[in-house]
């Protein structure tokens, strides 16, 4: 695939870096070139956590980029922090539960989508797998990696937890699937905004 850039941002502790690492590994396992770099300023303890991902079939250039193909903001603070990464070709995604006014959303974007990920996690699954829903959504929105590769990479990273409690495996894989379906649905239905 041609160069594809994703920026994920959320609160420290939401698991942004975890899903970025899993996605990058999945891509690598499918013999893609992949670069994943976390932001790591002084705010590493308490502050917005951002992950930058790039996927390509060719050697990737600079680890940094100006505009992403997809931006996903997992918290309200993350929206403000990621506005700059949204350009005219960017798919900008945030959670529908956020209290965001239209002027607080990016000025430039190809499409802005609100996903009910937090609600779904809280009501249908478990708050802990909110980030896995987002991971499924990334796949649904971009197809950067195959669903199978993502599941394998997820198993590889969290397998030790699944061994102790097999129900977790079921929960995580379900979250992944729900995330993907949620994203595909939102693409079909177009923009969901909440102004």
């Amino acid at each position, binding site marked *: 695939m041609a160069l594809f850039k994703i920026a994920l941002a959320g609160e420290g502790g939401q698991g942004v870096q975890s899903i970025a*690492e899993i996605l*990058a*590994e999945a891509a*690598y*396992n499918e013999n893609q*070139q*992949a*670069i*994943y*770099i*976390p*932001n*790591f*300023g*002084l705010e590493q303890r308490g502050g917005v956590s951002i992950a930058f991902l790039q996927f390509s079939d060719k*050697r*990737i*250039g*600079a*680890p*940094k*980029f*100006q505009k992403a193909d997809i931006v996903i903001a997992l918290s309200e603070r993350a929206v403000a922090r990621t506005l700059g990464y949204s350009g005219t070709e960017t798919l900008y995604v945030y959670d529908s539960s956020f209290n965001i006014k239209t002027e607080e959303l990016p000025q430039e974007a190809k499409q802005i989508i609100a996903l009910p990920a937090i609600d779904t996690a809280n009501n249908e699954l478990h708050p802990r797998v909110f980030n896995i829903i987002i991971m499924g959504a990334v796949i649904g929105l971009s197809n950067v990696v195959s669903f199978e590769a993502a599941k394998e990479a997820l198993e590889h990273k969290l397998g030790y937890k699944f061994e102790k409690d097999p129900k977790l495996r079921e929960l995580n894989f379900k979250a992944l699937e729900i995330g993907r379906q949620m994203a595909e649905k939102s693409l079909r239905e177009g923009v969901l905004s909440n102004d």
Partner: protein
Amino acid sequence: MQRVIGESKKSFMTGNEAAAWACLAAGADIMFGYPITPQNEVMHYWTRMAPKYGKGFLQTEDELSAGFTVCGGVQSGKKAFTATAGPGNVLMQEPFGMAEAMRLPLLAIIQQRGGPSSGTVVYSQQEVTLTTYGGNGEGHRIVYSTSSHQEIFDYIIKGFNNAWKYRFPVFILGDGYQAKMREPLEMYDPETRGIEMVEPYPLIGLGGKIGEERGPSHLCNIYSLEEELYEVITKVQAEYDALAPQIIEYDEKNCEDADIIIVTHGIVSRAADDAVKALRAQGIKAGYFRPITLRPFPQKELREAIAKNGAKKLIIAESAIGQLERLVKQEIYGETAKIETLFMPGVGIIDSDIIDKVKSVL
């Protein structure tokens, strides 16, 4: 030598982890280090692997100590190394100077961060001057500026060999992006690629009975007379100059018909590579030159690249204000190509930054 990788391994990991594995694969014996972002993980991985492979480690009280303990280690004939960044690099110039003076084969991994002072913990190319010419000496060092995890791995192996073969301290100059990002690389045991690792040897602690089998070994780094120092230094300089052709490495593309040559080092060279491809596709005759060794600098090779088509302009792009530019200018004095600059101190450079700059000066 101990095989640590086994079957050549394609892996996906951070640069710091790759560095730790490379030192292991290269047969390093002991690491001395001190915490400073963004190189801490080199220590984290090394301390986990060390007991399994019978390797040593000490977290010292500070970087002065880390540098000097490495000097001690190599003097005693062990492959010792360290890693640091930013203010830690500043402190280590004292022990690095001793290594230059006493021709100690130490290896240091430098992961550049924003400077001066505490700057940022993130990234820069602002330690070029420090790493090439820091300390109170003449820069008798070997400095590799890597641009990928594969190069971190390859040049650490080469670095240990060149350090012990030529007896100049060797620096692997990376940066915070390379340290923290994950990308693929292939790890290997050197012998599987036909690379013979140079055996270390002691300068002191030589074994044998003193007075009977050998005289004592006395090492020093101070001289009474100016003339003595002059003799020593000029001899070392001559040796350094003579060895340079065997050590120098660089990469050059598209200079045969270039009007403008983009000169970059380290990770910025990846953006430059992409920029040249994009510019060429637009009909602009851009060329690419990347010094891989900053010391010794590929001076002759850069002059030749310019001469190929009499390129009128050079663009020097770096995440610093003129540290690469100063090196280039000193090495190509007399060339008439106009030098344009793209300075982004402490900030990453992407291909569009370079493309925009090229177009603005054409």
